[in-house]
């Protein structure tokens, strides 16, 4: 599994569940926050845009109102002049009025204009030009620029053409007064005669351009924002960088502005940056346009900064939370892991606490059960090993039973003294064979042939010792000789039969040792017609009383039985049938085993 996942995360192989959980949570949370931030950004950007548009619109509306009020003011002054009787008389083409008579009018008009000029700092000059060639201004002495006759000026011509309506000029240099070149915005208007039809002259009022430019300069629409004015035809009336536009170093979105209705705004995003154009129409034909740069607007930045800050905090909290959560989730696992490590070290007394009934709780419980089972198996294995060692030790002792050896040698000596040479040879060679059979290497299993040889030699020796008391028969089927059996399996039983069954018998006893096949098993039988045993005695044999030092030299039946079962499994073993004064029959059942390998495979205690 791990191998499969490697290629995906080759740099950070996740080594702990907690890390995996933390990463999974973090990814999930980051993704969610990223998505929310993105959408809220979009939303707030939209809201901010809307707000800033409203703000600019409001500002431009203010500008519009102010400029409008300047123009209205000029308009009012023009109305004043229009309705002024003195002005009418003064410029009337009536030839009956002499110059002398006109003089006081001129003074009165000039005084009037002067008083207006005193109250209005934004007005540069007020003048009236009669078609009769007279003119009067707000000054006592007015010297006109000889090179700039009024009737050639565009405001003059415009007013004549407009026929009584007021005309607003673009900002221009007013040069009609000698040695004065002032930037003004002119309002000019044709003055009608008393009859209201014929015209008598042109009225001119000039507004200082600085009044307008100061107003526009004071507007705060960001560091780079500015205001400009275009007229109906799209010609620029005022622009802070008018010279650059004339020199084609700069372009302005005139076409877009002309298309935009009053009170609306539009956004432009080009190489100069993202900005909003807000357009307002004045009622005298100018369009006032405010331009604000998106990056400049304070609200815009503030909102975005806040939303970013919030998402940053959110991410930090989320990450901490995911670490904490993963820590909490993986704690039981880590506890279990700690316990497992203890078990690894060999401590089987560990018991994992089962805190909750979820998967991990179940895992803990199973773990506990497993540890218990292992513990049992371990103790079982230990006792088994112990038993085996004990029986092996006993077996070893039985092989070289010093008593038996001493007796046998004693018999040989005795026979030698009797000069029974043949018997000596027979017995000695039997003893030799016996030992050869019993010391057959370290192998636990020997062919039945060897076992047969061993028993034969043993019986021969015993027969020669107890010739008067012992009769024996050995009946092994030829077919079983190739199978294997535990080493020295039969000798203890034969020994028992001789020492406990036959020896105490007044007459001769017979021992029959037989081996035969029965289905998949091999059955050995050691039968005697000796004294036999009671059921209690048999019981005693199976469960011998704790160590009686002298007596326990031989191999207990129980041990032998255990040895077989350990080696071949519980299906095999020993059974004893005995009747007092009738005899005893010990039946030994082992499986057919042809070679060692098989035996080992079958070994585990099933």
């Amino acid at each position: 599994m791990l191998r499969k996942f490697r290629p995906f995360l080759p740099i950070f192989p996740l080594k702990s569940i907690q890390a995996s959980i933390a990463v999974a949570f973090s990814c999930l949370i980051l993704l969610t926050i990223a998505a929310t931030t993105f959408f809220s950004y979009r939303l707030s950007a939209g809201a901010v845009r809307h707000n800033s548009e409203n703000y600019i619109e409001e500002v431009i509306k203010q500008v519009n109102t102010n400029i409008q009020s300047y123009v209205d003011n000029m308009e009012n002054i023009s109305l004043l002049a229009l309705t002024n009787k003195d002005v009418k008389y003064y410029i009337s083409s009536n030839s009956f009025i002499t110059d002398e008579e006109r003089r006081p009018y001129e003074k009165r008009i000039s005084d009037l204009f002067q008083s207006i000029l005193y109250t209005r700092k934004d007005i540069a000059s007020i003048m009236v030009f009669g078609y009769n060639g007279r003119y009067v201004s707000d000054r006592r002495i007015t010297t006109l620029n000889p090179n700039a006759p009024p009737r050639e000026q565009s405001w003059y011509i415009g007013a004549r053409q407009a026929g009584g309506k007021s005309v607003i000029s673009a900002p221009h240099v007013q040069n009609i007064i000698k040695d004065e070149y002032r930037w003004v915005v002119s309002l000019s208007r044709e003055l009608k005669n008393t009859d209201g039809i014929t015209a008598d002259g042109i009225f001119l009022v000039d507004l200082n351009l600085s009044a307008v430019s100061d107003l526009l300069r004071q507007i705060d629409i960001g560091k780079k924002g500015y205001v400009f004015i275009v007229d109906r035809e799209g010609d620029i009336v005022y622009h802070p960088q008018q010279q650059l536009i004339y020199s084609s170093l700069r372009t302005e979105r005139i076409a877009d502005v002309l298309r935009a209705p009053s009170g609306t705004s539009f956004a432009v995003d080009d190489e100069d940056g993202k900005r909003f154009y807000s357009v307002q129409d004045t009622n005298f034909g100018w369009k006032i346009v405010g331009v604000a740069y998106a990056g400049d607007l304070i609200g815009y930045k503030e909102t975005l900064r806040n939303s970013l800050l919030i998402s940053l905090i959110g991410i930090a909290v989320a990450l901490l939370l995911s670490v904490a959560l993963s820590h909490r989730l993986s704690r039981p696992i880590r506890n279990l892991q700690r316990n497992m490590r203890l078990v690894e070290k060999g401590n089987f007394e560990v018991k994992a606490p089962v805190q909750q009934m979820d998967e991990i709780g179940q895992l803990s419980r199973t773990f506990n059960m497993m540890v218990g089972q292992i513990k049992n198996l371990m103790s079982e294995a230990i006792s088994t090993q112990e038993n085996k060692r004990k029986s092996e030790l006993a077996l070893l002792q039985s092989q070289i039973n010093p008593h038996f050896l001493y007796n046998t040698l004693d018999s040989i000596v005795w026979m030698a003294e009797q000069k029974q040479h043949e018997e000596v040879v027979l017995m000695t060679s039997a003893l030799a064979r016996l030992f050869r059979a019993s010391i057959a290497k370290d192998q636990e299993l020997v062919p039945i042939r060897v076992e047969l040889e061993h028993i034969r030699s043993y019986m021969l020796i015993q027969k020669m010792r107890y010739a008067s008391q012992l009769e024996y028969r050995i009946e092994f089927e030829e077919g079983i000789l190739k199978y294997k059996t535990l080493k020295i399996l039969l000798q203890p039983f034969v020994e028992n039969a001789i020492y406990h069954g036959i020896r105490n018998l007044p007459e001769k006893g017979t021992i029959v040792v037989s081996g035969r096949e029965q289905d998949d098993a091999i059955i050995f039988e050691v039968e005697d017609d000796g004294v036999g045993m009671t059921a209690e005695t048999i019981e005693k044999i199976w469960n011998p009383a704790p160590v009686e030092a002298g007596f326990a030299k031989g191999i207990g039946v129980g041990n032998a039985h255990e040895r077989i079962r350990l080696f071949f499994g519980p299906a095999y073993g020993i059974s004893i049938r005995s009747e007092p004064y009738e005899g005893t029959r010990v039946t030994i059942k082992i499986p057919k085993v042809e070679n060692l390998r098989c035996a080992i495979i079958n070994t585990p205690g099933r």
Partner: protein
Amino acid sequence: MRNHKYAWALTLLLAAAALCAGLYIKLYYSAEGGDRSVSVVLKSSSVRSNFWQAVSAGASAAAKEAGATIDIQGPLEETDADTQVRLLQDALAARPSSVVVAPVDDPRVSEAVQAIRRAGIRVVVIDMPLQSGTAPVSVLNDHREAGRQAGETAAELTDGRPNVAIVSDFERSRVSGEREAGVREAVKAYPGGATEIYYCEDSEDKAYEIMKAVLAMPEPPSVVVALNETAALGAARAIGEAGDQRIKLIGFDSSVYEIRLLEDGVMSALIVQKPFNMGYLGVKAALKRAEPRGASRVSYTDSIVVTKSNMYAPENQKLLFPFDGDGS
């Protein structure tokens, strides 16, 4: 194991922080010009000098457009090299991102500019090139081209037979020298074109005397080109007194007096520079990170020919009558 998981949390946290920081930077500094600053040292900061006030307005306009901060300084007198050197040293001490300078014709000024360049500050020279040393990026007034325009205008006024008297100030003046060369170049191209040079040493009276002498010649020249204002005013006085309408006068730059002469018809044409554009382009070049490969390091602002008939055209009014509300 413990370290491992914290490393993970830390990595993620750092990644998130980096992301946010990146967004911050993008939000704050892409729209603005960063903290770029320009120091502008002009030849003159006198409020009475329309030309330099227009340069200053143009420079401010460019700085505002780029969102950079700008500091404009200059001596009161156009020839005050000592003050300009001091101002340049101040600019160097303030360590702005770039410096725009309209150098006074003096080797010490060149040296001060080179010192600023050596400090790794971007320098743009406007108006006139440095007297010595290698030229950094420059936005210059093309005085030779202006002279050529004067010469062409002279030819137009005389139906292609210009006989021109040039009234200059000093022989060593570089501006006048360039203008003179331009006039000669243009006039030479016409058959019968002739030029004669006179120096008035920046004195109106001397120009008047010279002009009187010239007009008294048996065959007076048909066009007088006065290379600066004093020369133009002196010459105009002489021509006005003579009342000879055949003699055409062509002047340079614009002042109220020259404009009046133009209105009066004594002055036939004025060659007017575009100082606002020069200031604007100078600062704009200064705010650029570097020149595009292959781009010229020197650019010129043009001049226009203003006559009585076009002097009140909207685009010319702005040049002839500087308005202090400009560029704000």
